């Protein structure tokens, strides 16, 4: 019994956070999935192909076409600049190009979500933890607010992939110690051990708030 517990403890770290499975899972959580765009693209192709099947099937059995005869359509496409107003042609082209650009960028861009990985493990064997930047920001704002001794409305925190910006508007007449706020935020960040680690910056506005 004890030996099995020992072995569990021993392989815990390797299975939990370093295993290939977990790395893949964490990647999927921190990058957006293209499921919605993919379904839209597939539906678009489905509709176009469905129309094509209809027309070519109708044509194959020698029935009159539903909307337009394929040969007529092709002939119109061949002598394209003629037969349609250039404005309409340009507009259709622009819409198609825009749609294509959206799909292409969705396929190529990294698509990082506003999330951080929590590497901080108090003790061993912490599961993989992914945190929304919004949660980090509200936690840091609370800490900064306590350090600066102001109300929640006077602190605004922006968390991005590489940096944390803390904006503090002091109460009029009561100075805010920028260093203290920075220390508090840095301490909180040190406990979180975010990955990638953002650099904190504190910005105390010169104008204060009256009556807060």
């Amino acid at each position, binding site marked *: 019994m004890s030996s099995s517990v020992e072995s569990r403890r021993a392989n815990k770290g390797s299975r939990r956070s370093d295993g290939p499975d977990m790395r893949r899972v964490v990647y999927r959580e921190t990058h957006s999935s293209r499921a919605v765009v993919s379904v839209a693209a597939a539906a678009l192709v489905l509709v176009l192909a469905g129309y094509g099947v209809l027309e070519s099937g109708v044509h194959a059995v020698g029935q009159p076409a539903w909307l337009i005869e394929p040969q007529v359509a092709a002939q119109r496409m061949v002598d394209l600049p003629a037969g349609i107003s250039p404005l309409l042609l340009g507009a259709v082209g622009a819409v198609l*190009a825009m749609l294509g650009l959206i799909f292409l960028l969705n396929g190529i861009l990294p698509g990082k979500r506003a999330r951080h990985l929590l590497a901080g493990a108090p003790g061993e064997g*912490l599961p993989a*933890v992914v945190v929304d930047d919004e949660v980090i920001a509200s936690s840091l704002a609370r800490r900064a607010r306590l350090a600066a001794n102001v109300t929640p409305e006077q602190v605004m925190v922006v968390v991005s992939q590489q940096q944390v910006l803390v904006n503090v508007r002091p109460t009029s007449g009561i100075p805010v110690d920028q260093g203290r706020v920075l220390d508090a935020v840095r301490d909180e960040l040190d406990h979180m051990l975010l990955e990638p680690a953002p650099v904190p910056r504190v910005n105390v506005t010169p104008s204060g708030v009256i009556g807060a």
Partner: protein
Amino acid sequence: MNSTPALLNRILLAVLGLILLGVGLLLVLLATVPPVGSWWHSWSSGAWGGINQVFDSTRFPGRPESWLWIVVALTLLALMGLMVAWIAQQGKGRSNLLAAEYDPGEIPGDVRIGGGVAEQALRHALEGRPDLAGATVTTYDVKGSPALKVRLLPRQGVAPHLLAAEVSGLVDALESVVGKEIPVLIHVGAGARTRFSRAERVR
């Protein structure tokens, strides 16, 4: 966490995007630049002539239609089938099994533990917490092995690392009950429910 084919999605989207972008740019150029129009004319009429010839040479004996139309229809049908398959791949991966193992004890047979055990146990343990606005637990099938995803919605101002540490303690307890190690992902998220609810003030 689910088994959405991420790489396939990217490739197919990029290919489709390139095609649409190319067609759209061609149409815009046709409408605006006259030399492109004459080039298109010479190129496309040549291509269309070739295609026409192929269609003419593949007629049904005694009828004006070409059997190539049937081929075209079948190809498009196959394309439609592929698209349906592609859509069906999205967002798969939920499972209902937490553990399934042969039991080497005195009674022969397998032991299976459903995902509902973990989901209900964890949800019950997290229910009364004042710092959480909500929590969901789901079981996923990651490449054939079960995994748990715990989604936490903390109230504003809750330190995520402390919350994660406490929840991982709960997960440890669950693992010792189930007797098997399960890969766990904890997602500490924010939503409309956390944004407009009151902040947690005492802790």
